[in-house]
């Protein structure tokens, strides 16, 4: 067996074992599943720390501050803010960390609030202001979009008791939501089966490597 062939073979064997460990949870929680779970968490955390260092900390802070200080000295400011964040671990000096958090929240809010409003509220609202009627198929189906949105919003209006006409519309709103949940559930089943089939395909391939064609 060639040397180049052994390493991928071992990786696939490890993949097979870990897949079976993970599936064992379907029977009940057990040490094998726990091992696989902890391995994923540990490897992921370690990978992310290393990745963050090489893609962010080194090029954006270390390289700029140490090798290009005269041109990019201002990079030291976010560096200092980052260091101040670590003061959270001290009870006496935890207040220092509030400053970087304040900057972070300020920038985040400034960036997110106007664009969130524009894209998730205003544009969705304008997408509901559409021609309705019986003139064309589009206009006809638009009735369902507009009515569905109105009834869905009524369901979430709790300042008035859901009785009479208002209650009826709220009930239609629930049905609209149920249709949405049903679609999500169908999609979710598809997603989970995709993952399962992929694993089965992987197991089949590994078995074929060891025992020939299935």
């Amino acid at each position, binding site marked *: 067996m060639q040397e180049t062939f052994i390493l*991928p073979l071992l990786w696939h064997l490890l993949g097979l074992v870990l897949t079976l460990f993970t599936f064992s949870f379907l029977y009940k929680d057990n040490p094998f599943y726990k091992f696989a779970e902890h391995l994923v968490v540990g490897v992921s955390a370690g990978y992310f720390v290393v990745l963050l260092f090489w*893609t962010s900390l080194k090029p954006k802070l270390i390289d700029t501050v140490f090798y290009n200080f005269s041109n990019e000295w201002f990079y030291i400011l976010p560096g200092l803010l980052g260091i101040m964040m670590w003061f959270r671990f001290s009870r006496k000096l935890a207040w220092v960390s509030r400053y970087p958090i304040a900057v972070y929240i300020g920038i985040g809010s400034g960036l997110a609030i106007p664009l969130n409003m524009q*894209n998730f509220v205003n544009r969705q609202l304008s997408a509901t202001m559409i021609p309705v009627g019986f003139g064309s198929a589009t206009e006809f189906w638009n009735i369902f979009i507009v009515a569905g949105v109105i009834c869905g919003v009524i369901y979430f209006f709790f300042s008035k008791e859901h009785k009479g006409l208002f209650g009826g519309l709220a009930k239609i709103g629930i049905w609209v939501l149920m249709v949405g949940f049903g679609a999500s559930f169908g*999609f979710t089943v*598809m*997603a989970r089966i995709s993952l399962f*089939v992929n694993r089965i*395909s992987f197991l089949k391939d590994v078995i074929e490597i060891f025992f020939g064609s299935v």
Partner: protein
Amino acid sequence: MDFFEKISQLDRRWVYLFLAVVVVIAFLTRFDVPVTITTEVKSIYDRIESLNEGDKILIAFDYDPNALAELHPMSFAILEHCQRRGVKVIGVTLSQYGAGMAENILRTASGTYSDKIDRFREYNQGMFEKTNDNRYRDKTYKKDWEYGIDYCFLGYKPYPALVILGMGQNFRLYFPQDYYNTPLGELNIMQGVRNYDDIKLAIDITAGNTADFWLIYGNGRYGVPLALGLTGVMGADYYQYLQSGQIFGLIGGWKGAAEYETLVEFQGGKAQEGMPAQVVAHLTIILFIVLGNLGYFLSDRRKQATVTQQV
């Protein structure tokens, strides 16, 4: 205890086992399932089809290994389409574990991937042919797809919102070099590409909230024509952006990927391969839901009848 009562009290592990057996049988036996093409998938295909040879697009591979099964097939199909059309692809990832995924799929699609394809039948083996220099390439495409000329991979940078905003000003702001530390100025494909104005469209293939960031900052702030490739779980949540015109296309899970594979005429694409198992799994789950609900209603009616008799 009759059949329906038994079924409504069945240990869930029997359901798992039954479903697993059914799915495995369906996967191994393999029968044809017709794939109907939806407009949301077709519009992505049409948009790429309408591009000229040499046009550049951006694809963000924003998913981790846990979504590989769902999103790799659609990534591969889209890349294959770009390759056939001569459309150049700038790859990027905003997901922390996405760099490996992006590199893997770009190399696989480019035909420079190692002989793993041959050994482990990792991807649509039938589509590849071995070239004289021991590389693999797509049988249907006669040109090699070369790194730096036809495609490139910028790599990963944290904080997706800021990176998307930064790329709107200049790609070099966040990515002075590509994933392999080559300055962008040295990459042929990046010549004349400054920001989103120089690309035709962006496709975000994602398993997380980067779709929202692309919607808000990519499309909302810079007006990039945007399409989404999503996991099944996310699919239903993003249809409203299609209706509002914020995205021009949507590929949802394996079904969407199977549609795209059909459009680009793949033989035995991964998603198409899995559709029989999907159909059987959905039918099984529908059967269990119907039986469970029947059991619930019948036992409920019987309980009510018993209470009435006692009164």
